Structure formats: C-alpha cells, structure tokens
C-alpha cells in the first residue's frame, strides 16, 4: 500500500518535472540568447553564452526607447483596467441580480462581442477613431480595448455574481444599505477572483496588444511596448540577441504582476468560501 503511494507520488513528481522543463527551457534559452553576441547566437544556437553581453540590454533599452514605451503601456493598461472593471461589474451585477425588462436582450447583445473576430474589423475602427478625433491618442486606444473586453468581462462577472446566495444583499439592505451599497460592500469583495481573472487575462491582452496599437498610435512618443519591439522584428535582418534582451525587459513586469496577483486570487477563492 505504501509502495503504491510512493510510486504514484514519484510519478506525479516526474510528470511535474517534465512539464516544468518543457515550460522553462524556452525561457532560459531566450535569456541565454539575450546575452550572446550576434555571431555567437547563430553559431551556437542552443548553448549558453561564453561571455555575458550585458550591453545588449542597454542597446535594446536605448534603441527602442523602452522607458518611454513602458510609461505608455502602463498608462494604457492602467487606464484600461480602471475603466473596464467598474463598467463591467456594474453591468454584470444588474444582469445577474436584478430583474428588469430587456435583461436577457442586454446580456445577449453584450455577449455577441465575444464572437466578433479581431483583425479586419480593426480597420473600420480606425475610420471611427478618425471621426471621434481619437487617432494617435492613448485615450482612444484605451477606449477601444475596453470595448473589446466588455463582452468577456460581463460574462465572467455575471457567472460569479449568479453563484452568490441571494440572501447576501437582502441581509445588507435590511441593515440599511441601498442596492448599490450592498453591491459595493458585500458582493464586490466576494468577487475578487473574478476581478483578478480579468486583470491577468484582459489586462495582459492589452499589455501585449499590437494590432489596435499599431493602427491607432502614430507618433513615436506615444507608442506602447509591443510597437517598440516591432523595431527589432520588422526588418529582414533581425538582431536576435538585442531583440531577446528587449523581450525579457517587456515580459518581466507582467510576470511580477502575475506573481503578486495569483496569491490574492487563490486566497480570495478559499477565503470567500463561495460555492462555485
């Protein structure tokens, strides 16, 4: 009995290790690549660098002016989250917990947004942006990204809200809260996992978004990070080590956000003790 348990555990550990390596190795390779010279990169693709070329990082940073682009990306993604989360939560709450005429139509209408293909419809979006004078503005980019994430956000938050017991608001309102107050004070805190999911999914998509950003942002000083990377990849002669250095710079913050966020996320789930 005990041997069986040990065997299964070892097997499980082995499986985890394999998965871990499959996931990790490409990342290690990218970091190693960022520290090689160009010639070494092509001649020794998979090994470790013989000398660490730290100046690839400074070249990447300066050539692409990553500092400025960081700020722009932060503004756009931050603004995006600040607008998206309240908008989505309010709408999803009403749809999930309030009976009103046309409720289902509103929900279906917003849900269709999940089904609209990206890509080609970005071009009519540009025509609209021109009409609204939102071309080459970070505000415009933020608003378009919000709009594209509303459908998923509403869907997600609604299923969170639906799973909460009805008694919660009633209890709060008996204590003198308004409808909206009970929403803010009781329901929202229990939905933190849903909010975090949107942060790490929709927020990530906006951080990495290239298509809309490329279309709408036209002056170099407003460019976000993915556009900055395009300097390195849009050529026929990609300088891989420097590109990888830039990629490492770009990816690290999202990783940190995730590491910070996942603890809250899991904690929220267990602390909330909400029936899924």
């Amino acid at each position, binding site marked *: 009995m005990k041997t069986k348990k040990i065997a299964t555990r070892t097997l*499980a550990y082995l*499986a*985890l290790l394999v*998965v871990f390596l499959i*996931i*990790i190795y*490409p*990342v290690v390779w990218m970091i190693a690549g960022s520290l090689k010279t160009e010639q070494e990169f092509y001649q020794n*693709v*998979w090994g470790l660098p013989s000398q660490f070329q730290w100046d690839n990082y400074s070249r990447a940073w300066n050539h692409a002016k990553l500092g400025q682009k960081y700020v722009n990306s932060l503004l756009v993604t931050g603004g995006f989250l600040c*607008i998206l989360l309240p908008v*989505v939560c*309010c*709408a999803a709450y*009403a*749809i999930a917990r309030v009976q*009103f005429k046309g409720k*289902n139509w509103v929900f279906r*209408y*917003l849900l*269709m947004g*999940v*089904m*609209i*293909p*990206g*890509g*080609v*419809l970005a*071009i*009519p*979006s540009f*025509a*609209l942006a021109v009409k609204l004078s939102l071309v080459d503005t970070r505000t415009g980019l933020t608003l378009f990204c*919000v*709009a*594209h994430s*509303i*459908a998923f956000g509403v*869907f997600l938050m609604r*299923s969170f809200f*639906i799973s909460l017991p009805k008694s919660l608001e009633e209890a709060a309102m008996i204590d003198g809260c308004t409808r909206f107050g009970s929403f803010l004070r009781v329901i929202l805190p229990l939905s933190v996992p849903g909010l975090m*999911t949107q942060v*790490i999914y929709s927020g*990530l998509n906006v951080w*990495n978004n*290239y*298509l809309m950003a490329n279309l709408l942002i036209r002056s170099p000083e407003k460019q976000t990070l*993915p556009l900055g*990377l395009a300097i390195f990849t849009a050529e026929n002669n990609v300088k891989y080590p420097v590109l*990888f250095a830039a*990629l490492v710079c770009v*990816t690290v913050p999202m*990783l940190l956000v*995730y*590491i910070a966020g*996942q603890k809250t996320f899991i904690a929220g*789930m267990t602390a909330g*003790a909400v029936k*899924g």
Partner: protein
Amino acid sequence: MDHLKNAKLKSRMFPYLMCAPALVIFTVFVLFPFLYGIYISMHNWNGLSAMTWNGLKNYLYVLTDSVFWLSMKHTFIYAILVTILKNVAGLLLALLVSKEFRGRTAFRVAVYMPVTFSYVVIGVLWSWIYNPTFGILNNFLDTVGAGFLIQGWLSDPNVALYSIIFVDVWKWCGFHMILYLAGLQSIPRDLYEAADIDGASRMQKFLRITLPQLNSTLVINVLMSITGAFIANYDVVNIMTGGGPFNSTEVALTYTMRTALSLNNMGKACAMSVLLFLFVLVFGFIQMRAMSRDENYAD
C-alpha cells in the same frame, strides 16, 4: 407619496443606469465599426480608391473561394483540438497542483509564464525550436534515440497545423490551470468527506462531485478556447507559418487578414469577417445552450 414614487423610479432606473456605461462603450466602439464593416463588405474596395457598390457579390466570392473553405476546415479542427487539449491539460495540471507539495508556487508561476509572453516571443521561440536544420526538438529526439519521430514540424503540410496547436496549448494551459484551480478550491470539503464515508473511489469522487461542481468553470473555459480558436488565433498562426506551407495552416483569421492587407481586397475581407462572426454565433450559442444548466437564461 412623492417620496415613494421617487424611490420606485430610482429602483426602476437602477439596473438601466448600471448597464448604461457598458452599453454605450460597447455600442460606440464595437457595434459601429462592425456595422461599418458590413457596409464595406458590400463594396469593392482596395482600401485606397473610391468604393464601388457590389451588393452581396463579395459574399458569393467568399463562398466560392476554395481557400476560404480550407481555412474554415482548419479553423474547426483547430477549435476542437485546442479546446479539448487546453481543458484537459488545464484540469490535469490543476489537479496536480491542488495538493500541497514542495515547489508548488514555483511550479504554478512557471506554468503561467508562457501566458504572459506576447506572440512575438512565442513565435520567435517556437520557430527556432521547430526548425528542421538545427531546431532543438529534432536534435533532442535524435539524441534520445527517437529519431523516427523527426518531422518537418512547420514545413510538412500534414504536421504543421498540429505543431501550431501544440504551441497554442503550451501558451494557455497555465491560464486554464488557474481557472480550474480556483474552481476546484471552491468545492466544499464536506462533499468529499461525505463521499469518503460512503466509500467512494477516487474516480467516482471525481466524476460525481468534482466535474459537476466545476460546471460553470468548465463553461467559461470551453467558451474561451472555442471562440479564441475562431477569432483570436491570428497572431500565433501568422508568426509561426503565415498560413503556409501550401495553405495547410491557413485559418479563417489569417486568410481574412491576408485578403485585406496583401491582396488589398477590403470588401471581400469584411465579408469573410461577417461570415465568420455568424459561424461563431451559431457555434457559440449551441455550445452554451448545451453546457449551461444554472442560468436564468431562458427567462
């Protein structure tokens, strides 16, 4: 009397006001461009000169385009495989990490890393891994004696699509793992305890308790995988193969963008987008109808 009427009005307006911002933003920034896209689809336009009215001819051209149907076929295969794999992988990984073990956090972080990568990173990374000349995958297979498994991962038309599917799953399995993990952890312990008392086996507990409790998580995950395969896989396919070789990895989105940008046929591309939307609409709603149980949806 007035006070009561006031309160009643407020309470009636409340839901509409709550929905208003979402509705306004969505309508302006998503619906209007979509309608304009439909308008464009009825014209012959190269993106530069004047538009000429074409009626529904573009739709006819799309439906008679063999490459379009090929791309749809690929998209369907992609959607089905990717959904199954992402959800199975996500669930398995979630089960693995739901128990405490040393290095659990590190593992969770590591598995999620690919999710944070932009497609530029993914495309570059995997193009090199799959490279037939000196890609590490073929090198590795050779070294461990599995040389017979060596393929032209991205150059063999029979294999290329599946290579890309693997990359897509590799990128997103961490995300689905997180969602399933959250779902798993919200299942009340006492259900399992009760089952233990009744002497249920692991498999029975899984099938009778875990899966049903995960239903809403499942719905979200499946919906995301399926719709993602239809309307969000442009970047990954484009960067890895650009739709080649010989259209073997052409999916709906890459063909649409190619028609718009390389062939300068905006009208036809918009027609394709509209058709794609209709496909996804039908497909998506069928899927949700089939899977949702606890929705006050049919009210």
